[in-house]
């Protein structure tokens, strides 16, 4: 069930909203949470019914760990490391099995040449990746670590209600592709769920949802055929093919993922809940460091708070710090998929963050002026765009083909010769919006008739413009 599919828009969402607000009339917050939990399980069950127990199990592991921590804390003690290990290792263990088992078998076989790894590899590769597992596992880990830290600091004096926790872990707007919400952000809202509906917030949610839908359907999906023609082919592209295909992917992944995140924020608002904004116009960043503060913000902050800082952050020496940074960015790359191209993509970004740090020191030392903002934004945009080649290419060899083609500037469009003028327009509009348009979350929302009709029009264009079944890119991670 996709957010832009008929079943979701015309059946699932209206029925869920109806059930949710019907409980409100009877002043029943528990009923609302139960309606949300049930709807989320149905939503997930639409993808794969047999993975629903896995989702509940993945939510149960951190819940047991949290209850253990809370039990200790409420009895005046400090929790040991075991509940923390249960929550973290239990969750990450499931992620390792379902997402990385085949990958690691290949790695171990490559290193040791032990036949056993080679024999089990096909079986491990055939394990079906449960939808959204990378997202809800990270949420579970964060929830356990946060509670453990609070308990160790003596700041924990309440218990997490089971219904609230399971509703948080399975909350369907952000279940399958984020934003990665912290338990501390959503559970207090669920606990204090308003019995009266907040129509102003819901109106804003509808607008944000419409914008997200339009980003996905009217921009990202029209870039997709250009991208596929470049990366899914085995033919050698021309330089223009590669440049255009790379630009198209740069825009596609942004509008696809930020569109999904906007829809998630909008949907949550329809239920009276706030979840964090995931994208803050990342292509306007003046450096790679800034880019990661604007792109997939909740993931960047997760890696910062639960990996980078615990490993030592920037408190160690330059060399150790560089190693930590590269390890974290490499892990962030691997989080996206069990493939070396993703790891390389992560390391590529880590390297440019390091270069930026060196540049900042160099500038400070020699008292140099900061470069013009246009130059720094353009340079960052190009670096990020080139990095996406590794992210999208199905293999290293294809990525290298694309890079090699840049060296040959002759020849026009070959693989992308079939691109229509409307697609050119979509590319230009998408580029202009990515670089210059205000972020929808920064807009001053006004519930005027004009905004309402504009929202209705956007919603219509998006619903009528749905091309084909085209799942969100981040669903695969």
């Amino acid at each position, binding site marked *: 069930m996709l957010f832009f599919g008929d079943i979701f828009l015309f059946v699932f969402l209206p029925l869920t909203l109806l059930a949710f607000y019907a409980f409100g009339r009877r002043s029943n917050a528990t009923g609302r949470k139960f309606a949300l939990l049930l709807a989320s399980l149905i939503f997930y069950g639409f993808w794969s019914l047999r993975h629903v127990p896995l989702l509940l199990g993945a939510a149960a592991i951190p819940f047991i760990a949290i209850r253990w921590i809370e039990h200790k804390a409420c009895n005046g003690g400090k929790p040991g490391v075991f509940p923390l290990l249960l929550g973290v290792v239990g969750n990450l263990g499931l992620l390792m099995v379902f997402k990385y088992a085949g990958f690691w078998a290949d790695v171990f076989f490559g290193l040791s040449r032990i036949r056993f790894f080679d024999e089990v590899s096909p079986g491990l590769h055939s394990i079906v990746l449960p939808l959204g597992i990378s997202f809800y596992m990270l949420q579970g880990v964060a929830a356990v670590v946060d509670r453990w830290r609070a308990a160790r600091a003596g700041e924990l004096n309440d218990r997490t209600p089971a219904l609230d926790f399971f509703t948080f872990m399975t909350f369907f707007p952000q279940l399958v592709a984020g934003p990665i919400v912290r338990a501390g952000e959503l559970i207090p809202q669920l606990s204090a769920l308003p019995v009266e509906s907040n129509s102003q917030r819901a109106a804003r949610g509808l607008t944000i949802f419409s914008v997200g839908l339009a980003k996905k359907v009217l921009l990202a999906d029209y870039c997709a055929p250009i991208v596929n023609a470049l990366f899914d082919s085995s033919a050698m592209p021309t330089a223009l093919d590669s440049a255009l295909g790379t630009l198209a992917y740069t825009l596609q992944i942004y509008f696809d993922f930020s569109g999904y995140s906007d829809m998630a924020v909008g949907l949550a608002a329809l239920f009276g809940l706030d979840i964090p904004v995931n994208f803050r116009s990342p292509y306007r960043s003046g450096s790679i460091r800034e880019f990661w503060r604007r792109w997939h913000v909740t993931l960047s902050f997760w890696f910062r708070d639960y990996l980078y800082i615990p490993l030592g952050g920037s408190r160690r020496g330059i060399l150790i710090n560089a190693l930590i940074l590269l390890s974290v960015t490499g892990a962030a790359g691997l989080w996206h998929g069990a493939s070396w191209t993703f790891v390389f993509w992560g390391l590529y970004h880590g390297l440019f963050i390091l270069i930026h740090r060196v540049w900042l020191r160099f500038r400070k030392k020699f008292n140099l002026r900061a470069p013009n903002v246009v130059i720094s934004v353009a340079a960052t945009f190009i670096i990020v765009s080139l990095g996406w080649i590794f992210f999208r290419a199905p293999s290293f060899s294809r990525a290298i083909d694309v890079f090699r083609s840049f060296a040959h500037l002759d020849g026009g469009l*070959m693989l992308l010769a079939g691109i229509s003028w409307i697609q050119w327009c979509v590319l230009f509009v998408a580029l202009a919006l990515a670089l210059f348009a205000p972020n929808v979350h920064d807009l001053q929302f006004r519930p005027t008739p004009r905004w309402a009709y504009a929202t209705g029009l956007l919603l219509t264009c998006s619903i009528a413009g749905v091309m084909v079944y085209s799942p969100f890119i981040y669903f695969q991670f």
Partner: protein
Amino acid sequence: MEGRRFIYRALIACGLLLALIGAINSLVNPYSEYSWQIIIPAKVPTRIIKKEVLEKAEPPIGAVIFGSSRVAELDPRNMIPGGDGINLAIYNPSMEDIYAMWKYLLELHPGAPDNLILGLDIGMFHPGPMMEAGLYAIPELRSRLSWTTSEKTRLEYIRFRRLFRLYALEHSFRILKSAALGRRSLINFDERGIPYIGRAPTGKAEPGDKLVKPPQKIITKRFKELRKRLVWFREIKYRDFDEIGTKKMKLLDEILSEARNKNTRSFVFLTPMHPEMVQLAESMTPLDRWRREVKALCEKYKIAFIDLSDSREVPYLPSWAFLDAEHLSSDAVNVLAGKLSEFFAKNPRHD
């Protein structure tokens, strides 16, 4: 309260607009011949798609169909009893394309297919350079043509292709206009990546099937929209077509000769053309000479041959069986597939 009014207004506006689009669509597209897409997607070159189809094919290959988009909807699996098969028809092919694919097929599958079906049309035999540059973008296919191509040919060809940009631009305007009217893309892809026009192809060979003539109103509407574009396209394609390309005939000769040596049963048929297109080809190309030369070549190798190129002489494919003056409708493709399978059954192996 303001928020609630806002939501009502937005949803009512959306509902009314969707109802309006649906109503217009039901008027202009009553038979759902166009899929629900606003903008035509970038066309992945069919040569690349078919090269990949070829690479994925597992031997033994029962039958292979080569030809243009006119035969792209034929499914060889339904036409040759008991055999598997693949359709390697591509958009706007030249004999070079077919030759390169044939050579690549033999290299990948030295055993050669059991049956070779060639659906030829006059456009493939233009004496000038090829129409589509796609072949040059695929090293595996390009290398099979090293003796027929040169940098000069390639440059000529790229110049020639620019003319087609105009066609593409005009086509895009048409799509936009269709979208504004609630209609969508004209070109789609089936689950195997094979492009088709209009409804999804079935390629079912059902001997004895007859076509049902749709209401005249529908035929007229369809032709008003598509005829002008296709005639214009053909006029460009047939420019300077005053003789049959000798190199192209040589390539056909070589394919048939090699198929014979490999003990592959071959069939050649000239693809059906709409009466208006027959008239256009007669006025701009040596159509009759081409028919005679292909027939003579087939007789030389004792290959089963059938000429369906003049739909005026093929009663089961009347002008209204064409979807757009160029391609047959899906129902007509099924009828054609049925007739061809009967023809194949009547023509045993040439040895």
